[in-house]
């Protein structure tokens, strides 16, 4: 080990700012080795002892060749060392020179962090949903339609992998006609606040969702996964149930409130992520258990009235659950409530409501056309 450089007391000087007046004083430095302290001796003032362990260097400084040090516990006094030999001496003696000064106010910080989290949670999970539920009932149909248009565009843009153009709709004429016939059969005799528009998006997701203003959107993946047209019809009937009950409007209004709060928290650096999150929420919309039960009940009644076995809904869930487990697409969507088994069972029981003759929701030609709607 090389011995620490020694200092002849008379040779070491520094510029001293005492933090009381705007005057730079030339001070003499000396070492008090037994006390392990640097002695700062301003002219016409009592010398101060700065313990080596308490001396810190200012961080991230632009260098003009000098080193500025301060002492923990003294917020204002500064020593400006300019002479290289003096700098080396201080560097050799002060073990904590480059350590961060201890953080202050950590208790207060923790309290505010907790308060911030609590208030944001209160706003996102309590205040905004409560208001959204209230307001959704007052939104006129034309307004809902516009809200649906806007959110559909956002979802199409957000879901596109390349990020360069909105996700295309599937519009093969025969398939579109088949889908319209199916929708017509299910909505015959149902009082709708606005006409229903059904779209198919060209994407692998096995899912379907409803948007404000009467939009029901299927992903190609769901149509490919279905084994019979009745399964597609059953999902459509369930989403129509959400449309009739205006559930999507509540969710969309809720997002309008909470999205801004999230953007606030994350800063503009994650602007894109927030939009993506909005899309995610709308697709994987987790409605309340009552809303799901109401949509199921609507689906059962509508399917039965149209001569389609309501158990098709249960069959579809059952198979997806077996094939993909719990966390995939539509299963995750419907799995958000532990009573999935009950709902499959309820769908089976609803078959009892079938009165007239069974009629498949689409004939063989139409079903093939629907399966090829994206080509």
């Amino acid at each position, binding site marked *: 080990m090389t011995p620490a450089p020694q200092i002849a007391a008379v040779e070491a000087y520094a510029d001293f*700012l005492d*933090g*009381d*007046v*705007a*005057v*730079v004083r030339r001070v003499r430095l000396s070492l008090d080795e037994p006390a392990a302290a640097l002695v700062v001796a301003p002219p016409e003032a009592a010398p101060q002892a700065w313990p080596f362990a308490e001396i810190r260097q*200012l*961080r*991230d*400084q*632009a*260098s*003009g060749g000098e080193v*500025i040090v301060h002492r923990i516990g003294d*917020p*204002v*006094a500064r020593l400006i060392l300019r002479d290289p030999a003096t700098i080396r001496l201080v560097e050799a003696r002060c073990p904590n020179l480059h350590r961060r000064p201890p*953080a202050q*106010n*950590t208790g*207060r*910080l923790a309290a*505010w*962090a907790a*308060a*911030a989290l609590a*208030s*944001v949670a209160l*706003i*996102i999970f309590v205040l*905004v949903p409560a*208001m*959204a539920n209230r*307001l959704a009932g*007052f*939104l006129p149909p*034309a*307004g809902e*339609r*516009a*809200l649906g248009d*806007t959110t559909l565009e956002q979802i199409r843009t957000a879901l596109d*992998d*390349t*990020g360069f153009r909105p996700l295309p709709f599937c519009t093969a004429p025969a398939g579109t006609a088949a889908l319209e016939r199916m929708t017509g059969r299910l909505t015959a005799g149902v009082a709708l606040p606005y006409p229903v528009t059904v779209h198919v998006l060209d994407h692998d997701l096995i899912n379907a969702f409803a948007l404000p203003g009467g939009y029901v959107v299927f992903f190609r993946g769901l149509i490919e996964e279905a084994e019979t047209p009745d399964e597609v019809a059953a999902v459509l009937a369930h989403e129509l149930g959400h449309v009739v009950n205006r559930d999507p409007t509540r969710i969309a*209004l*809720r997002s*309008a*409130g909470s999205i*801004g*709060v999230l953007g*606030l*928290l*994350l*800063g*503009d*650096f*994650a602007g*894109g992520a927030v939009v993506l999150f909005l899309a995610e929420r709308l697709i994987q919309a987790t409605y309340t258990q009552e809303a799901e039960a109401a949509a199921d009940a609507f689906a059962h009644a509508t399917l039965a009235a149209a001569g389609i076995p309501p158990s098709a809904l249960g069959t579809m869930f059952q198979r997806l659950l077996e094939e993909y487990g719990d966390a995939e697409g539509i299963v995750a969507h419907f799995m958000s409530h532990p009573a999935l088994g009950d709902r499959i069972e309820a769908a089976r029981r609803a078959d009892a409501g079938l009165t007239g003759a069974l009629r498949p929701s689409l004939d063989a030609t139409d079903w093939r056309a629907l399966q090829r709607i994206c080509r």
Partner: protein
Amino acid sequence: MAATDIGTNFAGRRGRLFWLALKTSVLTVLTLGFYRFWMKTRLRRYYWSSVRPGGLPLEYTGQPLEKLLGFLIAVVFLAFYVGIVNLVLVFFSFALIQDNIAAYLLSFIGVIPFWFFAQYRARRYVLARTRWRGLRFGLEPGAWGYAWRALLHWLATILTLGLLWPRMTFWLEKYRTDRTHFGSVRLTQGGRWQMLFRPLRPLLFGLALSGGGLLLGSNGQPAAFWLLLPGAPLTLYGFVHYRVRSFQLLTDHKTAGAIGFRAHPRPLRVLRIYSVGGFFIVLVLFLMLLGFSAALAAILSVGTLGEDLLSELPDLMQALPTWATALVGILFYFSFFIFWGVLTQVFLTLPLIGHYAETLQITGAPQLALIGQRARDDFAEAEGFAEALDVGAAL
């Protein structure tokens, strides 16, 4: 320069700042934005210590954790406004006019007073954490007074098509300066607002030329479009000229007791920093985009480096598996913005601060010895509102 005047040195270096900015930006991205409070603190320490009136560096004593705390405080207040008010605005906007433009517009207008409020509070925080010669600067409270004054001045400026801009510049600067302290001494903004008309002249002239050219040109006299040739660059220069010369006049008329200031920034030099810096930034980012495209093309072994490579990018992206596209996209997105920010610091902020610093003199320096310390402004909210509202308090 009198014997009692002191000049200002600038010790900032591009290389050192580049690494500091790059390191802290990467950490900010990796921590999902959390490190930005540390980044801001560290960059300010560097900039402040670069500016050395009379050879003694300024010191920035702000702490990252107090910025985080201030941000959390602002979040508690703003979350309520943003959440509830936005929801109500979106509802009425869709209900009444079937569009959300009105909601965005109203939401934006509603935030403007907060914006000025936040600007003043951020300035108060930054001054309270700035020291020179061991003494603290400070700004008296008065953010709401500033906010409504700024609103009215803006309104007057817009209604007079910009003619009252000098009036706004002067009175807002006076409001801030007259509340600014260095240690025990208070600063005063002298002069009259009319003195700022002179700096406005190149801009007015440029606007008149361009406006006249456009007006006549689109009304059957196409030859008048030639007026844009001198008009447009003159307008651009006019903006810079006004900013620089009004800063100079305002600085020359500031006093702190018997201490005064002399600023000599040059509009053409500032314009050059903007043009050269802007050119470098665009060039580097364009090369990044080109390199990224070439790398992608090489990976896929499709196509050669043609001139329409950029237009083929969407198709190239489509050919990759989803996770790879997402990864490449995220990587590129963030490196683009990181470099944008870092290069702006290195090629614009640093040379601009350098120029303003090196052309600043302080007169009556011996009077400095009479100034004492002022008490610490324990300002818990820091610049939280500015941070949350993104008021451009990047520095």
